[in-house]
Each structure stands twice: as structure tokens, then as C-alpha cells.
């Protein structure tokens, strides 16, 4: 391990950042901070992608890094901020489960993911293979976050954070997917976000709130 090239060590550092940010988002109560954290996570992702590109001379990863930067750090947070301003929803984010418990579960998930990723990572010839576990863990944490949030916007942020984790997995484990796929994914994310934005307005118009408790009428257990 000690013989890792410098850039790889940097990648590992940013990977750790990513995980840390994921935890931070899990613990964050305020929606604005949540978005900021998300933007930071995007930034970490973009930087680590760029470093991978630099270290492995995969030029298309630069594109990928740029895309991430534009989309995840600039565009989406901006969109979210705008939404919050327009919708005037700056409430605290209240979880369904209290934060310490969530964190504990998160730690368990991290252990689990590392365990799962370890045998696979051994197979990889990339220098960044150790980060696969981190990527998986951040996906899981985002998942957990989506489960525990009861408002629409944090849930969407969780969803986007999950995409971050996936991107990170793609970058770190395989030096990125083919460009056409990456573009497609990015497009999907963007369009999805726009649709979600429209949705927020519609939901608020309909229910006067973005609380997900209004969205619990279609069920079978009356």
C-alpha cells in the first residue's frame, strides 16, 4: 500500500471525503446546508475524477469530471436553491428516525459494504480499487437517507447523492464508463431533476406543502 502513487493517495483522500460528506448529509437537519453538502460532494467527485484522469491518462475522464462539475456542483445546487427560494421552504429537515440511530445504522452499512467490496476489489487492476467499497458505502448511505427523510426535497437530494456514489464507483473501479453512456446518464439526471422541479411546484400547489405525509393515500391497508 505504501507504494501507491501520489495521485492514488489523493484519490483515496477524496474518497474518504466523499464518505464523510455522505455521513454529514445523513446527519444534516437543515435543508440549505444539505444542498451545500451535496454540492461539496459533487465537487469532491469531480476533483477525484480529474485526478484519476490525470493519473491514468484517460482523457475522456476529463470530460466526465467537467460534466460532473457543471451538473452536480453548479447546475443542480443552483436549481435546488432556486426552488427553495421560490417555494419558500427553509424548514428543518426532520428524519423519521433520530440522527444517532441513523448514524449507527450508517456505520453498520459501511462495514457491510467494505466487506462486500473487498473480495471484488482484489480482482481489480486499477490503483483505485480500494475505493469501490467507499462508493458502495456512499450509495448505501444515500439510500438510507432517502428512507429516513420525510420531506420531498431532502429525498431528492439523497437520490442525487446516490448518483454521485455511482459515478464514483464507475470512475474508481473502471476508470469510467464509455462516454456515450456517461452522457446518457448525465442527460437522464438533468431531465429527471427538471421534472422533479416541476413536480415540487405541482405538489405544493396541490397540498400546500412538500411534506411526504400527504403522499400516503394510495394504499391497501385500510
Amino acid at each position, binding site marked *: 500500500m505504501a507504494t501507491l502513487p501520489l495521485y492514488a493517495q489523493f484519490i483515496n483522500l477524496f474518497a474518504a471525503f466523499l464518505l464523510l460528506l455522505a455521513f454529514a448529509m445523513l446527519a444534516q437537519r437543515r435543508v440549505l446546508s444539505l444542498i451545500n453538502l451535496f454540492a461539496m460532494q459533487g465537487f469532491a467527485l469531480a476533483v477525484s475524477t480529474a485526478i484519476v484522469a490525470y493519473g491514468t491518462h484517460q482523457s475522456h475522464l476529463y470530460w466526465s469530471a467537467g460534466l460532473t462539475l457543471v451538473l452536480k456542483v453548479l447546475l443542480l445546487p443552483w436549481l435546488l436553491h432556486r426552488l427553495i427560494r421560490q417555494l419558500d421552504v427553509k424548514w428543518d429537515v426532520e428524519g*423519521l428516525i433520530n440522527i444517532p440511530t441513523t448514524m449507527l445504522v450508517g456505520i453498520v452499512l459501511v462495514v457491510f459494504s467494505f466487506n462486500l467490496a473487498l473480495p471484488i476489489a482484489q480482482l481489480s487492476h486499477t490503483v483505485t480499487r480500494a475505493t469501490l467499497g467507499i462508493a458502495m458505502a456512499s450509495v448505501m448511505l444515500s439510500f438510507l437517507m432517502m428512507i429516513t427523510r420525510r420531506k420531498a426535497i431532502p429525498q431528492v437530494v439523497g437520490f442525487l447523492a446516490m448518483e454521485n456514489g455511482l459515478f464514483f464507483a464507475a470512475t474508481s473501479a473502471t476508470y469510467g464508463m464509455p462516454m456515450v453512456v456517461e452522457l446518457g446518464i448525465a442527460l437522464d439526471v438533468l431531465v429527471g431533476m427538471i421534472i422533479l422541479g416541476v413536480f415540487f411546484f405541482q405538489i405544493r400547489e396541490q397540498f400546500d406543502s412538500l411534506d411526504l405525509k400527504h403522499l*400516503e393515500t394510495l394504499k391497501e391497508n385500510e
Partner: protein
Amino acid sequence: MSDNALGLVIAAVVAWIVIGALGLVRPRELRFVSHLLFPLGAAVGLALAVVAFFALGQLPQSTVLPLGLPDLPFHLRLDSLSAFFLLLLGAVGAAISVFAAGYFRSGEGAAPGLLCFEYHLFLAAMALVLVADDAYLFMVSWEAMALSSFFLVTTDHRIPEIRQAGFLYLLIAHVGAIAILLCFGVLQGGSGDYTFGSMRSMVLTGAWPSVAFFLALFGFGAKAGLLPMHVWLPEAHPAAPSPVSALMSGVMLKTAIYGFLRVTFDLLQGQLWWWGVIALVLGLATALFGVIFACVQSDMKRLLAYSSIENIGIIVAGIGLTILFKSYGKTLLAAITLTAVLYHALNHAFFKSLLFLATGSVLHATHERSLGKLGGLIHRMPWVAWLALVGTLAIAGLPPLNGFVSEWLLLQAFLFTPSLPQSFVNMLVPLAAGALVLAVALSAYVMVKFYGIIFLGRPRESNLAYAKDAGWFERAALSFLALGCVVLGIFPVNVIAMLDPVNAMLIGSTALHADSGNWLLLTPINADRASYSPLIVLIGIVAVVLLTAQVVHRLYHGRVRRAPPWDCGFPLQTPRMQDTAEGFGQPIREVFDAVFRIERQLPSPFDTAPKYAVKVGDHLWHWLYLPLARGADALGRLVGMIQQGRISVYLTYSFFTLLALLFFVR
């Protein structure tokens, strides 16, 4: 003709389908449908019967149609077993079609043309069931049969009870069909070849044969109305128009018997003795159950429906006995029993159709199904009444009519049982014989009630005075069936000779003793053991009757005076003083109190209009079906808990599924 019998059968099927489709061309044209298409269908049926008659005992013929699955085109085969049941279908179906020609009226439920379509599809499907030689075609025609009959049952779909009945029928039929399908799944033995030919050569090992047998018993039993899957039958039969009830009771139930025989004796290689015991016990339980319930019915078609349950029970008991004999290698006895089974199936087809059709005529003449509102129709509808009398006596198992012959044969078979090696079975069989006799004796009770209350006595309602006798189509159909009852009753030796190819095919032995060439005397084993000659009995009775009448009239006189009835001098007599249907069944209700679930509505002393009502329910419905329905409902509620509306919970499912799988894969 017999060279290409199968081709002719196919032609008949196609003809029926075409006739049905023609009905859709002008669905509201009653005369076209009833006076042209139905008689045409009857002619096809008769032709089919003739073809089948000549195909009995011929070598099996088979063919393949370019339809069906790519690796499994429709295989058809006509052997003696199929031919026998085709004969039954053709003959009885023809009579019912003739009846239907006079029966269906416009303005009653569905359009006549649509009915004609469904009706002929029903016939065609039944014929196809009988000649199917692969599991796929069998199932397709089997379910087509269920479906077409379902639509026929719900002809009058505006009445919720009829819809309910239809639903129950189709549900049980469908569940039964799935069981049959699974049975074929077992029988194909993993070969992936669903032709019956392949199944015949497949030797199943371990518990598989038993699994197949019980799936078949369940599946075909559901269709036949075997306990405890009988509940649909007393609902569906009364709901259907009478020709349809007749067809269902007379013919469709027999296709279930056919299927059961086909699987048990043809497709399965060997039979185990305890299968026979179970079938025997189940059959007798069904028979007793059916007849006891028939005793207390007050709707004439329900009564007949329960009687059908009884007869099916007798038939299945006979099959059980056949299995028992065959598994012990007593082929001669097995052949006798099987003969009794087939004979009874044929008899039941004739007399039950006859009676159902008769109820149809009564229904049309009086618009009344409740026994409590009928009576005295022998004066208004002599044709129907006298022909129904034949059916009544036949179904009551009285010599010299046909019902007695098959029961006689079956009892003979019971008597020969002590030659079996298993002492347990030897003990069981006398009890079984007792149960059978009890059922037969009770059926006489039922039929006296049925006939006496509908046709005899005085009309219980004033509007019965306007009842008209059936039309010529209906009379012809009823006469044909009544004649069938008489002929089948009087010439048993010839009938059994006709059945023998089936025995030879399924059992490997014939029922008739080789050297009993006497057409007059039915002697299954030898003349010392047992013999019966209905013709001589008939001649004996008729001779005595005629002779007595002659002698009495000659020696004394034949003067008759008509006067009001005496009735022990009671001055006021109204028709309401006759026994009602409930009253007639009351002793049986008392004796078998435990079998029924009786709900009484008693008047209180303060009622201004006191009312008494009694409802006889089925324990099985309350102990088996309602709990099943409730169980399903409770399970549904339980399962409904997972769909509880909150998105976090849904995400959690997804999350835990993922985690669990990941954990598992690790």
C-alpha cells in the same frame, strides 16, 4: 364408415361449431335459431351417436391436426372409451337439442343466437374432450367446456343469485382444471411430451403415481361434484336454463368421469388398492350426502342437482371398487364393476336429462320452480307427466327400468368382494354396500317427493290451471329419453355387450361370462351366482296386471263412479292441506338433523302475520368454504399491510431486499 370414424367425429365437432356460429349471424331471429339450427344440431348429435356406436370395439384411430402448440399439435384419438362417452353425448345431446328447439324463447336473458352459439360450442367442446389425445387439447377443450357452460348458466344474468352461482361454478371448475393440469404435469414424467401416448408408456416411480391420482381425483371430482367440491352444483344447475341443466347434469358430469377413468386406468400404469378405498369412501359419502340433501329441497331443480351429486357419488364409488379389484388382479370382477359404472353413467345421462327437461317444461308452463307452488300437473300436462314418470321410476332404481340394472350390477360387485386378500377391505366393503343401498333407497324417497308434489295431488296455486302441455319438440325429446330409459333397462345383456370393448381396453377382461350367450338373462359370473332378466320381470308384471284387470272386469264388473274425495269425511279440504315439499322432507330432516345446518324462523305469539320458514344449509359451506374465504380475506388483509402508502417504507423494502440478497450472495 367405421374406417374413418374419427374423421366423422371431427366433422361433427366442426358442424356444431359452424351451427353455433350461424346463430351469431342472426342472433335475434328466434325461428331461424330454434327451428332450424337446434334441430340441425340434434341431427349432428344423432349422427355422432351412430358413428360412436360403430366405433365401439374397433381398433383405436388417431390423427393429428395442424393446430395447437408448435411441438404439440392437437392429437386426437378415438378408442372404445371415447366412443362410449361420445355415444352418450351424441344420443343425449341430440334429445336435448330437440328439446331446446322448442324451449328457448326470445326475451329471456341473452339473445337466442348467442345462446345457440354457446350451446353448440359447449357440445363441441365436450366432444373434443372425449377425443383429445394430448394434455393440451384436453385442457383447452375442458376449459372451453367450462367457459361455454358458464355463459349458458348465466344466461339470465340480471339476477344476482345466478351470477353468484355462475361465479362459484367457474371458480371451482377453474381450480379443478389447474389440478388436472398439474396431474398431466406429473404424468408426462419430465419428458416434455404431453401426448397421452407418451404418458401411457411412462412408468412413474415413487409417490408420483399417487400424486397424479389424487390430483385427478381432485380435479375431475371438482367438475363432477364430488364431496367437498360439490357446492357449485346445486347452485349452477338451477340457475341454468333447463336444457343446459340437462346437458350439464346428464353429459358434462360424465366427461369428468371419463377423464377420471382415462387417467386412472389408461394413463397410469398400475393402481394401488388404497386409492380404491379412498375413492370408494369418498364416493359413498358423496352419494349419501347428495341424496339426503335432495330429500329436503324445495326447489325442483335443486333437488335434481343434489340427486346428480348422489349419482356421481355412486359412480365414483364404483370406480373405487374397480380400482380395488384391479389392483388385486381380479380382472373379471373389475370388469363387472366397471360395467356397472359405465352403465350407470349412461343411465344417469338419460334419466337425469329427462327429468331436467321435464322441469323445464313445467317451468315454462307455470313459471314456478318452487315445489310448494306446484301440484296436479298430470292433468294439465299429461305428456310431460307420464314421460317424467318413467324417469322418476328409473332414477329411483326400480325394476325393470335402467336405474335398477346398474345398481344391481354394482351390488353384485360388492357381494363378490370377500375374495380380496386384505381383511380390512373385506370389512369395509359390507359397510359400503349398506351405505350404497341406503342411498338408493333414499333416492326412491326423493323421487316420490319430486313426482308426487309436482305432478300429483291438487294444484297448490290457482294459476296452475292455465298450465299448458309441452310442445311437439319437447314431447319428442322427452319421449326419446324415456324410451332410452326403458330400452336400457330391458336389454341389459346387449348394452353390456356394447360396453365390453371398454372393459377389454381398460381392464383387460370382459364382464360377460364367456358362455352366457343368452340375451335374455343377465348373468355376470354364472347363472348359479346371480341372474336377472328385466324383460321377463316386465312381462310378468304386465301379464299379471292385464290378467287381473281382465279377470276382475269379466268376473265382476268395471263400473266406476266419480265423487269428491272422502278424506275421512273432513268437510273442508283445500290444496294447501297437502304435504308441502318441506313437509315431505321433514322426517328426513329430523333423522339426519346433524347433517344439516338448519335455520328456523319461528313466529312469535304476538306476530300479526305469523310466518314460519326453515332454511337448510350445508355444513361444509360453513366449515370449509366460508373459512377458506375468510382465510383468504384475512391473508389478503395481511398482505395488504405491505402496501401501506408511505414511500419511506417502500424504500426500506427495496433496501432490505438488496441487503438481504447481498448478504446471501456473499
